[in-house]
Each structure stands twice: as C-alpha cells, then as structure tokens.
C-alpha cells in the first residue's frame, strides 16, 4: 500500500494534449497507473496514448469515474483547471505546473480544504507509489517498492536521493514532491502526518531546502507526533543570504529559513541530517 494513491486510483490528466501531458501520460501508464481520461477544452473526442480526451472535468468524471487529477496546463490556466477539478468532486489534485502566481493558490487552497480535496503542489514533481501508481513526472526507473516514505520540496534533487536509496536497497512506499512554491496544498507537516498514519511506511526521508520555515515546523511536528524514524537532507548550506535560488521558496530572511536553522531544528528533534544527498541511505541503514 501507499499514501494518497494506489493501483485503484482512476487518474485524469488535465492538459493531456500538450507536450508534457502527452509524454507523462505515457510514462504514468508505463508505471502501471490507471490513467482513465484526459481533459483539454476543445479536444474532446480525441485520444492520447489510448486515453479518451474530454472537454471538461465533470464529463470525464461522469464518463470514466476519474477520482484524481494531475494538472499540466500552463500557469495562466492552472487556477481554472484546479478549481474545475475540485468542483467536480475529485479528492486528489496534483499540480505539476510551475510559475503559477501564488495569489491564485491563495484562492485554490482554501476552496480545496472546504471541499475535503487534497492538493499536491504546484510546481512539484508529483507523487509516485512504486508498485501502485504514479501521478507525476519523476523518472519511472528510479523507484523500488519498499517501506520508506519520501517527502521533498525539490525535483531533480529528489531523483538523486531516491536513486541512491533504490541502489542501496531502500525502497519507497510513496514519494511526495510537495513543491517549492510559497503556497502549496500539502505541507511537509501534512505529508509527515500521512506517513506516520500509513502502516506500510516504516521510515521517512525529508528533503528540505533553504527558505521558509517548513523544515523547522516539520522538526517540531516530528518531535511531538512522529514515532517512525526520520532522516533528512537540507539543500542550500552554501547559499548566500538574500539571494533567490530559483524556487520562489528559497529566499533567506534574517536567521530564519537558513540551512543552519533547519539542520539544527532537525537534529534537535532527533532527525539525523545527511551532509551529502547520497548520505541518506547510510542514515537509513542506521534506522
């Protein structure tokens, strides 16, 4: 088993006819995901990788019983797409799209919460549950079924770490790329709570980075509520203060949000922090 998605999840791809949508629909199918429908306004009636395309989400849900959606539509239309998915009653929406104005997310997230819908992202690599399903853009071959839950704010850095885990024999229950934007649907703490509750997950990997206080809050939550072993990596130790590092998230302000502060918080919570990304498996071996 896994958190959030499983073999039974019936996945809808919003923006399926675009380059990314099409490419990753193929990859998700290859992963074993039940991709049951796609949506692109105006392209209803066509097919992509054998998946029927509809004009609207309501129709896709009605006709194909989709219950989760992954969004690839461009930033300017992502808010509309997410709201359409939430209002069609989907309970899991993964937003891959990057560069969405965060004011749009300020509207989407409370709506999702009021409807009991879990949003992952935006600006994230999505979700992968090896042996179950994938809703995301992570390379398929990285993963291996196992008992570690992975939570990360980053994309490629996560691939690096998951790859190292898999090579060292540490498989994953689910890998959640929560995304690096200022306003995200599922926080590090939310994801930790899911893994703590999941019976199959025996250990947890947290991949953080500078900016914001998500890691500090995660450390606090781990100390109070998480009984499973947690190990961490924090990117940005050498980043100079006051510079933005791509992720809107990565801005250092004062002494909050620095790598030092995050590493210190994790260590105080009994979470060992790897110096190198590839150090994660070694730390896992000790759990």
């Amino acid at each position: 088993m896994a958190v959030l998605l499983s073999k039974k999840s019936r996945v809808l791809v919003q923006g399926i006819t675009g380059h990314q949508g099409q490419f990753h629909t193929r990859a998700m199918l290859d992963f074993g995901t039940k991709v049951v429908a796609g949506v692109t306004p105006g392209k209803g009636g066509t097919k992509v990788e054998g998946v029927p395309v509809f004009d609207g989400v309501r129709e896709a849900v009605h006709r194909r019983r989709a219950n989760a959606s992954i969004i690839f539509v461009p930033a300017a239309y992502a808010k509309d797409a997410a709201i359409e998915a939430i209002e069609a009653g989907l309970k899991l929406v993964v937003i891959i799209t990057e560069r969405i104005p965060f004011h749009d997310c300020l509207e989407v997230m409370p709506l999702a919460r009021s409807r009991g819908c879990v949003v992952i992202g935006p600006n994230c690599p999505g979700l992968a549950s090896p042996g179950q399903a994938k809703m995301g853009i992570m390379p398929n071959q990285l993963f291996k079924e196992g008992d570690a839950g992975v939570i990360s704010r980053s994309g490629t850095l996560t691939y690096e770490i998951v790859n190292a885990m898999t090579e060292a024999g540490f498989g994953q229950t689910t890998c959640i790329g929560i995304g690096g934007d200022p306003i995200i649907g599922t926080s590090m703490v939310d994801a930790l709570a899911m893994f703590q509750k999941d019976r199959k997950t025996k250990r947890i990997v947290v991949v953080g980075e500078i900016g914001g206080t998500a890691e500090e809050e995660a450390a606090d939550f781990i100390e109070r509520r998480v009984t499973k072993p947690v190990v961490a990596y924090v990117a940005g130790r050498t980043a100079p203060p006051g510079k933005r590092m791509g992720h809107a998230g990565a801005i250092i302000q004062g002494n909050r949000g620095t790598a030092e502060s995050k590493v210190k918080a994790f260590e105080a919570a009994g979470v060992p922090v790897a110096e190198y990304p590839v150090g994660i498996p070694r730390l896992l071996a000790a759990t």
Partner: protein
Amino acid sequence: MKFLEYKAKEIFARYRIPVPQGVVAASPADILDPPLPCMVKAQVLVGGRGKAGGIKAAESLDEARTVAGQILGMDIHGFRVKQVYLEERLDIGQELYLGVTIDRSAREPLLMASAMGGIDIEAVPHDRIYMEHIPTVVGIQPYLVRSLLKQLALPKEVGDQIASIVGHVYDLFRKEDAELVEINPLVVTKAGGVVAGDAKLVIDDNAEYRHPEYANLDQDRTPLEQEAHDKGITFIQLDGDIGVIANGAGLTMATLDILGLKGGRGGTFLDLGGTDDPGKVKQAFEILIEAAPSVILLNIFGGITKADTVALGVKQALEEMHTKIPVVARIKGVNEAQAKEMLRSIGMYPAETVEEAAELAVKVKSGGP
C-alpha cells in the same frame, strides 16, 4: 519584482493610500518645482539608505539641487543611485509600521503593524508587532482592524484613517499580485493626518504576465543576471570562482553545497531547468562563460533524458563558443557510458557522481589532475 519608492508610491496613490507630494529627478537640472521644504531621497532597491546618507533635507530649490547632486551617483550597498525623489517634508507626530505579506506556513496573507515604525521591523520586539492572518476567502474584516487599532493604542480619528488604509493596502496586495506591501514609517502627522512615509512593494515574478506595465522596471540584478533573466534563465552570480550549472533549483543548490564541502566555492547558480532544448543549453553556457569562472561544474540528473544527447548538446555549445574553460561534467540518464566517452573525447572531465565531479573541479582549478 521590486519597486523604487517613487514608483511604489504612484501605485499606492492609485489605491487611495495617502502619500506625500513628490517629484522624481535623474539630475539636479531636472528639478524645477519641488515641494518645499523637502526631503531628497535616493531611489535604490536596497534598505538602509538613510543611514548611508541617501536621505537629506532641503529648504530651497537651490539646496534641493545641491543635495540631489550629492546623492545622485552615490553607491549605497552596491547600488548606484540613478534617481532621487523630492518629497514634501512631513510634520511627524508618530511613526507606525504597516505591512501585508504572505505567510507560507499558514498559507494566508499576514497583516502586520507596530507602533514602533521608522526602524527595521526585524529589530522591533516580537510582542510589539501586531500580526494576524487575513482569511483570503473573505478578506479584511472589521475585527482585524479593531484588534490592530487596539494593540497600537491609537486614537479614534487616526484609527478611522488607518482602517481605510489597511483596506486599500490589502486591495493592492491582492490585485497587484504583491508578495510584500510595506509602509515604514506610516506617518501620523502632528495635524492628525496619516500618510505613507515610505513605500516598499514587491510583486510576484510569476504574475509578471498579468502586469505588463511593470515589465521594464530596473531590478536589483547584476547586468549578467539581468541578461539571463531576459532570456528566461535562472542565474545568480556568487562570489566564488567555479561556475556551477545543474538542472533544478534544489539540485543546483545541493551541487553548490557539495562543492563547498569539497573545498571549492561556487561562482554561479545556474539552473538549466528542462534539458531537452539544445538552444537553451547553449544560451545558458553563454551566460556562464561571460561570468568567467575558472572551471565549470555541470551536474545533470536526467532520469528520463538521454545522457548522450545532453553531452552532445554541451559539446556543440562549447565548441561553437571556442572556450578554454575546463568543464567537469556529471550527467546521469540513459546511455551514460556513451556520454562519458563523448565528454572525455573532447577534453572534458567526466565524473560518475556529484561528489566525484566536485572533487575533480577543485583539482582542475588548482592545475590538476
């Protein structure tokens, strides 16, 4: 996007936030009819200009020109002053702080205020700062303003003005896609009026497309950073000498960190993002070479991408640019062996892991291996 004070105040005025009279000037000769007496204020995208001598008083037109001449061209924390703003002098009774920003943890805007305005908000004791989240679903509500006014212990006449300013500030924050709207000081004049003494405004870069009118504003970037920005490349100049380029912000940061642990210092943060487009790879390398690093450290975790294709793209880019800067490359993806071979064949230093690549970069820089 950051805004110079005078530009931010133009926007404030559109949202009916009271601002003092003022004129902007790029040279003393531009100054014709400033409000007098006035303050002459350096327009730079950096804090601390007052202490740095960037704000001075003037009583007459002549004095205003003289003072402006002194301030224009100044270097304030690395920023050259290109414009001054001449603003009516306020008869200050009290200086407050008012700001709206975004709280990532709560996923809501945060309303901040303090009766200790005029100084850096980070220097104000925590218990002297009013902070409440604004529920986006409903916006500013009367209870928020009531609790703010109570905590700041302000008299009713001033309170009514601040209530209205808070509403306008939030309106601006939402409609202009702001990350930060800050008024420090928010001045209560001796006559009891409330006016924005300063104006700080940062707008979400991702929302630039909704505000084309702000597209060409000067930002706090180096010329090379600006060039990269214009090309849509995420690039930051750092103070080291090894040019780091990787795909993904997190991986680029981690690469810099690993380099640091191996004794090197990154001179660039260059996030290549998607590696599909050879044109983009080339553009990125052009920027990188302009930054003149002693060695380039390339780290690509492709996953889906073919490693040999990336290697080919890098090879072509470097060959076309005739650069002699050594390149250490670690490219992970399908067909890694071929990629490694190709890199070696053109005199690059291939590496298996990031750690190895970082060590190699430090060695190459020192004349080895």
